[in-house]
């Protein structure tokens, strides 16, 4: 099936690769302990971050930095607010 396109989503970014390469990337990620979700019919795989890596970061009590957009598409990072106390609120419309 060489030549068939396959999408690999890694770090939130999607990249199109050859199907054989996609399968190899997914296998390597899984072997390194990362969670991998695969849909062979849709020819796509999502590579996540391992529980060990996330748990280690949280257990350090160092607040993980993130960058997200506001309604106008302007991007903000937690680290811009170093020096201030921060109330972080996650909510949803659902």
């Amino acid at each position: 099936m060489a030549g068939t396109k396959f999408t690999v989503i890694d770090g939130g970014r999607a990249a199109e690769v050859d199907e054989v390469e996609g399968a190899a990337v997914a296998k390597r990620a899984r072997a390194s302990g990362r969670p991998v979700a695969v849909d062979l019919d849709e020819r796509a795989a999502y590579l996540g971050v391992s529980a060990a890596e996330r748990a280690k970061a949280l257990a350090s009590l160092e607040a993980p930095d993130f960058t997200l957009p506001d309604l106008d598409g302007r991007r903000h990072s937690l680290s811009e607010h170093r020096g201030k106390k921060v109330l972080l609120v996650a909510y949803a419309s659902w």
Partner: protein
Amino acid sequence: MYDELRELGFTVITVAIDQSAEDARPWIEAAHPTHPSLIDTTHVLADLYNIVNVPTILWIDARGRIVRPNDVAFGTDTFKHITGLPAATHLAALRAWVRGETTALPEARIRALQSLPTDDDQQARAEFGLGEWLFNQGRTEAAARHFAKAGELAPHDFTIRRGTMPMRGIDPMGREFREMLGAWVKAGNPYYRPLAE
């Protein structure tokens, strides 16, 4: 509250964990916030902080350290009749911390309260991530399969189970949610818990 405390070196950052910016827009525009009001359509924050329900709050000190891990607090009493959680409890604790009248929580207490993700939690987030990508490709049915798988892997993760309902054509306030919540509570699990002390 925010305006009163920001002169003391404080900010609020709100993050809407929603399917699109448009879902969050009416809420944000109604609140006229002067602090960062961010949108997270791909569960970046949920993944980093192991957030499994909303609302979830955290306190982060001026050095960037977590001093109150994932906790439940509401800004108003709109849902108090359902949750039994008065907004004033958190607001009073927050105000005292920002003013420097109290420290947050002792480190041992922070660690005891922290919930760290398991392999299944992270596999569920990968299934969600694939589902979310497929949904945006118009592959609604394939997306729903991965959302369902994610929910089975992490049944306590309402950010996934309830948050994906709109993408599966299910009313997140409707019968399925009430049944899911009923089963969860009946099994002896808390949905919301009072602010940790």
